[in-house]
């Protein structure tokens, strides 16, 4: 299994600790373009695409394996084993915060810390829990995805997938940005928005930095506060930002909060 090809893994930067950036639903590693470069001088930085997204190997998309977030978590652990050096800090956006949590649970002790950007352990409201959505809302999203299927044609696939032997150009990456094979997008949407990872986050003792957007439809403030209350070793940081992608729309605020949180490992590098 060629992980580099399967997950379009890119390793940058220099340091004794490793930051592994994991993108969220809908996009690919290009969403880190404004944030990740700020850490290259003090950390080894690993970027990758979830299987089914970006320039990952679509042929590796196994419906059964990726019918739950566990499949993605196992991939993440393989990437950590193959490409990370020293202490590992996972930087996960949205659903990837939960993929990181599952990876941590699967291999306890391997992950030194988490940075969770716009995380949510459950999107649909439940008894005594506010996730922000009803089941019907998720069906409406699937319908919207369905409507935009027509924007995807099989002729587009080779262009977007790119030739594996050629280095991934940032231009190709931005071309493929947010374009996903429709069947994969729909399954990933279901897996993401119908999952319930509350039992996985509750009591996780690994240090966590929660970066919560002040105005976020997908992961509302109340969800960030919930996570802070159930993660015993968490730091909560409210970022003044509209939308679900503060690392894109407010990268400086995110970077500043992360630099503080990551200081112990950055010092290890300097030493």
């Amino acid at each position: 299994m060629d992980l580099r090809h399967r997950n379009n893994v890119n390793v940058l930067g220099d340091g004794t600790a490793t930051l592994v950036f994991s993108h969220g639903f809908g996009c690919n590693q290009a969403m880190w373009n404004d944030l990740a470069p700020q850490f290259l001088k003090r950390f080894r930085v690993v970027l990758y695409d979830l299987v089914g997204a970006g320039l990952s190997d679509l042929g590796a998309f196994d419906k059964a394996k990726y019918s739950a977030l566990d499949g993605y978590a196992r991939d993440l652990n393989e990437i950590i084993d193959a490409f990370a050096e020293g202490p590992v800090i996972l930087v996960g956006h949205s659903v990837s915060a939960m993929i990181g949590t599952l990876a941590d649970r699967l291999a306890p002790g391997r992950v030194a810390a988490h940075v969770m950007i716009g995380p949510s352990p459950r999107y649909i409201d439940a008894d005594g829990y506010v996730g922000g959505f009803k089941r019907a809302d998720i069906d409406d999203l699937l319908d919207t995805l369905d409507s935009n299927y027509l924007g995807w044609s099989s002729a587009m696939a080779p262009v977007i997938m790119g030739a594996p032997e050629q280095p991934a150009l940032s231009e190709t990456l931005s071309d493929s940005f947010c374009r996903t094979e429709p069947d994969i997008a729909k399954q990933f949407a279901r897996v993401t928005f119908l999952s319930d990872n509350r039992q996985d986050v509750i009591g996780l003792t690994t240090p966590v930095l929660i970066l919560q957007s002040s105005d976020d439809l997908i992961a509302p403030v109340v969800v960030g506060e919930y996570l802070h209350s159930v993660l015993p070793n968490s730091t909560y940081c409210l970022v003044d930002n509209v939308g679900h992608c503060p690392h894109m729309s407010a990268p400086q605020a995110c970077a500043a909060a992360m630099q503080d949180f990551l200081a112990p490992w950055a010092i290890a590098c300097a030493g």
Partner: protein
Amino acid sequence: MPAELFDNAACALAVASEDGTILQANARFSEWLGFSVAELCGRRFQDLLTIGGRIFHQTHLAPMLRMHGSVTEVKLDMLHRDGQKLTVLLNGNKREHADAVVYDLALFGTTDRDKYERELLNARNLAEALLQEKTATEVALQQAQADLNEAYAIAQRRALFAEQMVAIVSHDLKNPLTAIRMASDFLSRGERTAKERQLLGHIGQSSERAQRMIADLLDFTQARVGHGITIKAAPLDLHGVIHRAVDELRVAFPAATLEHHAEGHGDANLDADRVQQIIGNLVANSVAYGDLQRPITITSRLGDGACAVSVHNHGTAIPEALLDGLFEPMTRGTDQGSDVRSVGLGLYIVRELAKVHGGDVAVSSCATNGTCFTVTFQGR
């Protein structure tokens, strides 16, 4: 007159700030959504979408506009002031201002086209579902075929095993039986009391019966699970063969009165041993179930193009319900005569033997005329 062009454009136009707040909207925009321009300004574009569209905006559109600088032909459902859905195609462009970034948005109504596209989608989904169903059915069929082949192979092995086992057991039983008969023959040559003679007679008859049972079992196994009963047909004197067979059967069944009738003339082409076996089985059957106070009649008949043998006894009629299954293995006419009956294979073997000779067996049974089994052969 750019302002007039903007307002009267044939599509809805808006300018939004980086976070989606509408800064400017044209009259078409306000008309389509039922909000005044003043009401629209200050609202966020994404708040005018259905919930699915808002999630899509957050996860796809907003990042794409920021990264890629444009989006084209994105289909979204917007909500009219009265709650009605309005399906639009969105084109968006990022424009760098002196001090800020704005997005130029153009919306085209696509309600009718949307209906058509939904039909296409439904058709595609249906086709995909059917394909999946077909594939699943094919897989199930292959599995069933594989299961069947496996079951067949297992059945074959079991049949072979049963055949071999019966053959081995039968063969191994023959030797002790022969020893028993030789010993009883030897004993009966000396001076014996009446009681001893009677007991020796029992031993002789029982071992002969056991031998017939073994022969039946072997034939049954061959016919049922093996490769069929084999015969060696040759020209023979049917009347003579039956005559000798009846003589031997008189010794085997001393309690019965056996009469032989020979009718017609000519040669027959049959397996003599098998014909004797047929007569033996039918006579044993008549002895078991017939009236032993009255004679059992064995008739051999030669005629034009066919020959037949029949065995007739006077006895209670076989119930009508049993007649159909009489020639199936392990079937008995009644429970009477349980001390003389065999394993219930006799009539089955008679029918199988008749068939390999190109013939068949028939039975007639009634209270007045008694019971008569007739085997007709084609082999002449």
